[in-house]
């Protein structure tokens, strides 16, 4: 019997291929975007994990020299002989490849080319020409290395692992060690670090690698988009399933009247949906793979440019994607179908099997109540909520509440429109639009979500961009930046520049540990350039005067937040030297903490640091002449002189690339919403004939009807856009002021971009018009016989 019921169920899809397509396409597209984004994130995370495992970041504490330089090998021996269970690491670049040298005998568990080359030979690794482990493409770039090459897919991209002895030779670091990994287990009798090597500093294990934490924001962004696309996809699926079930009520009644038990029928329908979900899921995962493969090189380039993180540009096929892709397709279908199945279960056997002017009976009051409750929750969290989780709940409540509020809001507006309408055609137009609203509302909600996300994310990105450009203007105030190769050339540069430029600003810097965290310390000359351009998040009064008098330091926002500093708090810049914080400045895009001292204090504390970089203030018209003079008189290579404009262009290009991916996903989401509208209109088209036929019979031409339909789609899109704008702005605010602060520790100011919103509204109208075009074209060509048919028999 099951076979017969199945064939009856599937016959419906055979007769309605468009609905089948809608269902499969909606689910597949949603799954594709979700699993594509997951694939990108998983690939990047795998790269970070490989790097962290290779370099011992995260799981082990690290000991480094306080000045960030290499330490003598003898210090390592001294620590071992004092009971410290530490393992040495040497690293550096050979060409473009990062070489990491480890000592396999002392390395804590799990460090090193894990799982590489079964039957690995310690003798070969340790002695003779040695062995070098890396991914195949990394090995290809290591042409000059004699060692035996071993392909190890688990090693981080662009990284090669070898024995510490060989690494020291390759990198020219004989007798030097860059850092020590501190094993978790330490012997009982261990002398304090300060008594053995006072120049070293120990940092605790951080639980996750620096790179992973830095790139969190980026991945969060992608994940949010994946989820959003999937939920937009679910709206389509929900619509398609709802329609199909409504239209199959007659068949269900017939089958039950023929004696099919309800339980069995529902069970078979679940199986039917599961099969469809699996098919769509498989298509979706395959599509997602394509999306990920297309986006990954851009993502990898962005991550490298922005964070210096090495991410493989090649996608590996992981079985867990297939599974999670299929699971989310099944889960999504279950969510989308639950309501429809429930209403079938509760359908009395003898009720009229006619579709109930589909979904007209949806309980509007309940919808409004749920929507208001969600929006109130969002507002409550915005005011009182704490933590990242609260931030996400806020986003979710805001979006769902906003989406649910859309149909009642639109109904209200359309009612108003109807009230103001003059003339029968206009009145009919408004009334008919209202009549169609329930059928279109799911698609319009999808459009609302897509547009709101677009507004929200583009506001965030553009706010970030504006802040970032302002920040660049403030930080890159000098017209020309020159780097010297050594102290002698630095002196020559000063000699040349002093006579030809308005000011020579030396850039003194050294890498140190401040409050146990890696930080850069800069020495700044007291100059009007800084006073004019720098903006502070918070600062003491007369901050520049106090800085110039050596009364304190400036710190960036990252250090301020991570070290829990505050204005006036003392920060230790060198052993025994602590100075109060005078000001806190924004430092966007910099992963590490930063401190600025006045030049005199810097030179006193770090007398060995020689300024090799200079900012030169000069009339922009004189830049070319100064460049020539520096080249001819100080022997500075052309690539060591950079003008302000090209640094800004470079920084901005990195930034643009970061958000190219966001833009691509934005457009995809909008396209999915457009598709949802198309599908809703197509499925409504057939059902609307009884309503159109009388109007046609009263004298409105098919062309006129079609034009009104096109107009209707655009009016609805415009109204949806009007709701999307405030929702999107609320979303942007939540992202900037709540999620960003909770997740990354700094708050970005929010700016508004009306032109962008206008363009987006245009795009949404265009999407709606494009979606409506085909149904409208079909309407304009509908044979009059079919319209007449409406009067011949009542459907």
């Amino acid at each position, binding site marked *: 019997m099951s076979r017969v019921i199945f064939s009856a169920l599937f016959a419906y899809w055979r007769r309605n291929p468009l609905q089948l397509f809608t269902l499969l396409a909606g689910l597949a597209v949603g799954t594709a975007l979700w699993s594509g984004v997951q694939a990108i994130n998983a690939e990047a995370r795998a790269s970070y994990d490989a790097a962290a495992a290779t370099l011992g970041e995260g799981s082990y504490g690290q000991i480094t020299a306080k000045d960030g330089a290499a330490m003598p090998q003898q210090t390592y021996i001294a620590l071992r002989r004092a009971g410290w269970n530490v393992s040495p690491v040497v690293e550096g670049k050979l060409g473009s490849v990062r070489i990491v040298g480890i000592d396999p005998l002392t390395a804590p568990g799990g460090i090193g080319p894990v799982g590489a080359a079964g039957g690995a030979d310690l003798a070969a690794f340790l002695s003779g020409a040695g062995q070098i*482990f890396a991914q195949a493409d990394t090995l290809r770039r290591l042409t000059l290395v004699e060692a035996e090459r071993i392909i190890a897919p688990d090693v981080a991209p662009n990284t090669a692992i070898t024995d510490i002895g060989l690494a020291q030779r390759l990198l020219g670091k004989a007798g030097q060690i860059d850092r020590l990994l501190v094993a978790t287990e330490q012997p009982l009798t261990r002398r304090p670090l300060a008594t053995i090597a006072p120049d070293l500093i120990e940092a605790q294990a951080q639980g996750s690698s620096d790179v992973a934490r830095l790139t969190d924001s980026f991945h969060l962004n992608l994940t949010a988009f994946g989820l959003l696309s999937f939920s937009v996809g679910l709206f389509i699926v929900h619509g398609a399933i709802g329609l199909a079930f409504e239209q199959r009520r007659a068949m269900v009644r017939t089958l039950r009247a023929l004696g099919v038990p309800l339980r069995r029928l529902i069970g078979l329908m679940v199986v039917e949906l599961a099969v469809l979900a699996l098919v769509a899921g498989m298509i979706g995962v395959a599509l997602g793979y394509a999306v990920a493969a297309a986006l990954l090189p851009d993502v990898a380039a962005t991550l490298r440019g922005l964070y210096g993180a090495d991410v493989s540009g090649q996608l590996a096929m992981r079985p867990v994607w297939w599974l999670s892709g299929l699971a989310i397709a099944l889960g999504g279908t279950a969510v989308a179908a639950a309501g429809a199945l429930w209403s079938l279960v509760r359908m009395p056997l003898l009720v009229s099997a006619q579709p109930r002017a589909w979904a007209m009976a949806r309980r509007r009051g309940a919808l409004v109540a749920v929507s208001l409750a969600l929006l109130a929750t969002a507002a409550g969290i915005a005011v009182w909520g704490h933590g990242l989780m609260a931030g996400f709940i806020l986003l979710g409540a805001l979006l769902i509440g906003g989406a649910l509020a859309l149909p009642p809001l639109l109904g209200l507006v359309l009612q108003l429109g109807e009230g103001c309408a003059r003339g029968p055609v206009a009145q009919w137009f408004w009334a008919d639009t209202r009549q169609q609203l329930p059928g279109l509302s799911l698609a319009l909600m999808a459009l609302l979500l897509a547009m709101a996300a677009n507004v929200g994310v583009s506001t965030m990105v553009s706010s970030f961009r504006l802040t970032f450009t302002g920040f660049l203007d403030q930080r890159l105030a000098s017209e020309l930046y020159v780097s010297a190769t050594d102290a002698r050339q630095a002196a020559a540069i000063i000699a040349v520049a002093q006579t030809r430029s308005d000011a020579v600003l030396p850039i003194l810097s050294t890498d140190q540990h401040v409050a146990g965290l890696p930080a850069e310390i800069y020495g700044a000359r007291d100059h009007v350039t800084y006073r004019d351009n720098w903006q502070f998040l918070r600062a003491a009064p007369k901050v520049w005067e106090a800085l110039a008098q050596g009364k304190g330091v400036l710190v960036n926002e990252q250090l301020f937040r991570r070290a829990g500093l505050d204005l006036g708090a003392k920060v230790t810049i060198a052993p025994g030297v602590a100075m109060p914080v005078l000001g806190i400045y924004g430092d966007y895009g910099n992963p590490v903490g930063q401190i600025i001292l006045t030049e005199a204090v810097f030179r006193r504390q770090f007398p060995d640091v020689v300024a090799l970089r200079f900012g030169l203030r000069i009339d922009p018209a004189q830049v070319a002449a100064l460049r020539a003079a520096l080249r001819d008189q100080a022997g500075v290579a052309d690539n060591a002189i950079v003008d302000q404009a090209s640094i800004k262009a470079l920084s901005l290009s990195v930034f643009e690339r970061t958000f190219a991916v966001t833009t691509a996903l934005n457009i995809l989401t909008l396209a999915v919403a457009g598709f949802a509208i198309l599908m809703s209109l197509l499925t409504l088209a057939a059902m609307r004939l009884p309503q159109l036929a009388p109007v046609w019979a009263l004298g409105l031409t098919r062309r006129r009807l079609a034009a009104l339909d096109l107009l209707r789609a655009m009016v609805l899109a415009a109204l949806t856009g009007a709701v999307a704008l405030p929702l999107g702005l609320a979303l942007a605010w939540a992202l900037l002021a709540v999620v960003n602060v909770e997740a990354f520790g700094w708050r970005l100011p929010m700016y508004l971009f009306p032109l962008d919103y206008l363009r987006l509204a245009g795009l949404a109208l265009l999407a709606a018009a494009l979606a409506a075009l085909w149904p409208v074209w079909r309407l304009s060509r509908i044979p009059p016989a079919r319209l007449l048919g409406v009067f011949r028999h009542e459907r």
Partner: protein
Amino acid sequence: MNVKALIVLLCLPLPALAQGFAGLGSNAGVFADPAPETVLQFPADHGAHPAFRIEWWYLTANLTGPDGTPYGLQWTLFRTALAPHDGQGWQTPQLWMGHAAVTTPDAHFVAERLARGGIGQAGVQAAPFSAWIDDWAMQGPDLDRLRLTASGSDFAYDVGLAATGPLVLHGQNGYSVKSAAGQASHYYSQPFFQVSGNLTLPEGSIPVTGQAWLDREWSSQPLAQDQTGWDWFSLSFDTGDKLMGFVLRGVTDFTAATWIAADGSATALPDGAFAATPLAQHTVAGRDVPVEWHVRLAERGVDVTVQALNPQAWMATSVPYWEGPVQVSGSHAGVGYLEMTGYQD
């Protein structure tokens, strides 16, 4: 290729079962072979012999706390060579492994260290004597007066050693045969150390006194291909006499022993003179290990039961084995140490 795997690969080349415990049955190849005519020279031979493949400085001690509680202590430095020469820097083929343990009647503490030679992290110097790996050391002006230190994450010790008797050469002037086919090692001992010092255990610091036994052995292939492990006994009787005896388990077992009189005079005993038969098994780390033995040396009237102080004295190190203090009863009473290798799980 994690570190543990590396070390096991190093010490246990995969056909380990066919080649004796810890690869010790592999062919010597390019390494030096022990020769019966070699005359040991001191203090030079206290130092390392890089031309040989393996070597150890192996100290075990039977100690007593103030309340009479018996303790065992082990300090071992192993040297393994990847090639028969020494060298400076990371490229040296000499690798070092340290094992330290303290055994109490109900606990067994173990630590392990690994290091490469050539960079100063581990090594041995003959005079003044110093053997070290990381912060573990056995050092003194000469081999008669030593300070011994080691520490793990849950224990530590610091004891002084003073020799009260001469060095003892095993086999034929220190040439100790290990199989009927003629595999051998150079082997001598200092079994006459008096010990006093402190153990640091989770319950606190414990002053201890007692006696210790140092074994020095080096070779390139001390086991025959068919030998899979050994049971080694060092027993100190209350009479002042001492007995070193071992059984090398193979297709046919091979035994050897040295009877050391209280005055230090030593007598080497041939294959078959020493006999040891298991009396009771104990499951340790998933393997059945004989922790109670019937030991006989008919020539000297020795017929004793040797019983582990703590049957759980398992050395869960890169190359695992059983090593712990024992108590002797029967024809002779006393204490000693038992080492058992090559028991598979």
